[in-house]
């Protein structure tokens, strides 16, 4: 089983989990702080330090797995929702790439991938709603090379949004069909993922300049029509233990982490 590593601005989250019959059992989860200047929007700047921190963290927590699912959740990755005419699958990648390059003014040095969120017909013409992600080749290389340098093999590299979408697809978080907001807050950034009828609708990022733990709880407000799934990225282990106690059904507040998306948390 691959170990999941989420790289944020100043922190790395690591989750070692086992999937069995669509059930995920979390074996280990921990976070590693990154000092300033290790990462920026162009990828990893200080490869040596990043590798040392990650390697020592994996050794400390006895993580043996070498395959890695890497979730890049920082400004080095760009994602955008696009609407493109429905075309042949073989041509879709080219259309998405062209659309991304023109809409975001990207260069050819960007690696682009996408998922089809939805398909709909507008004025008798079929369209795809697509979530596309782009990363600079050099930034990607910095991540991959750094992982290779400590003998880790990245098999999947994705964005936080696609991780959350995968998680929602697999889990029972939004089974009831009502709109649900999944909130991810860390270091002054609030990320909201809105789902409706188990379908991804949108993501919003908000800066929070000053808040305390008490302030966080004020964010755990669920509206009459929307439930908010809340987690604190600063303490993943505690978050997991609390999530075990929580019920996944209903509109209760649960603590979770997108990168370790699971359908059901093992109670054993």
């Amino acid at each position: 089983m691959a170990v999941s590593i989420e790289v944020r601005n100043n922190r790395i989250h690591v989750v070692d989990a086992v999937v069995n019959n669509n059930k995920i059992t979390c074996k280990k989860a921990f976070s590693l702080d990154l000092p300033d200047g290790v990462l920026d929007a162009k990828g990893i700047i200080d490869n040596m330090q990043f590798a040392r921190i990650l390697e020592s963290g994996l050794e400390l927590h006895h993580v043996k797995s070498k395959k890695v699912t890497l979730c890049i959740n920082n400004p080095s990755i760009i994602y955008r929702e696009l609407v493109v005419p429905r075309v042949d699958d073989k041509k879709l990648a080219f259309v998405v790439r062209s659309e991304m390059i023109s809409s975001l003014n990207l260069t050819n040095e960007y690696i682009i991938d996408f998922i089809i969120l939805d398909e709909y017909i507008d004025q008798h013409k079929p369209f795809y709603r697509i979530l596309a992600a782009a990363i600079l080749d050099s930034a990607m290389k910095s991540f991959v090379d750094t992982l290779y340098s400590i003998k880790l093999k990245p098999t999947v590299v994705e964005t936080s949004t696609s991780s959350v979408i995968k998680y929602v697809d697999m889990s029972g978080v939004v089974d009831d069909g009502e709109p649900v907001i999944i909130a991810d807050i860390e270091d002054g950034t609030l990320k909201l993922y809105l789902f409706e009828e188990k379908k991804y609708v949108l993501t919003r990022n908000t800066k929070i300049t000053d808040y305390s733990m008490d302030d966080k709880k004020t964010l755990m407000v669920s509206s009459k029509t929307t439930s908010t799934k809340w987690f604190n990225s600063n303490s993943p282990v505690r978050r997991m233990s609390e999530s075990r106690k929580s019920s996944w059904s209903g509109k209760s507040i649960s603590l979770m982490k997108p990168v370790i998306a699971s359908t059901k948390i093992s109670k054993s």
Partner: protein
Amino acid sequence: MKKQNINLMEGFSAIEKRRSQKSDRVIVFMALFLSVFLIVGAFSFKLYLDNSNLKDKIKVTEAYVNDPILKARIAAIEVSQAKINDLNQIDQILDELNASFEVFPRINTLSLRVITSNMPTGTSLKSLAFDGQWFTIQLISPNYSGPSQFAVSLRDSEFFEEVIYQGYTSEVVNGVTRYVGKVVAILKVGD
């Protein structure tokens, strides 16, 4: 098939593969270029060495050929060679002469024995002459048939190529008539 997951690693792997192939191509091209350069260089160096060796050998050979002592020796050898050629010609001529002599008719004891043994009883040899080819034999017989018998006997011996009986004359000596016959015979060539 509808695309379900984002995986930027796939795109990156494809780019890395292209990069690697490009790098491999460059390495192969460089290796090829280097190999060709080394081969051509080595071959040129070998040719240069061969050329130098040949030039040295030409110099040595020219010095040897232009040596005055050697030239004098060569001239002497040429003179000697001409003499040897003359001697060889003489030798050849002598051999031819010898061969001619071998086949040339020669008088020997066998010829004389054949002549005397074929003389009839009572006849005696008066004279015998040989001019290089022909024997002229004169014999004295007490009867007139003696010379002709001798000629027949000589022809029957097949020792001679041709035997010609030239007749006889009679003469009286001391009251006794005797007959002098003349026979000429030619030897066979090569005997």
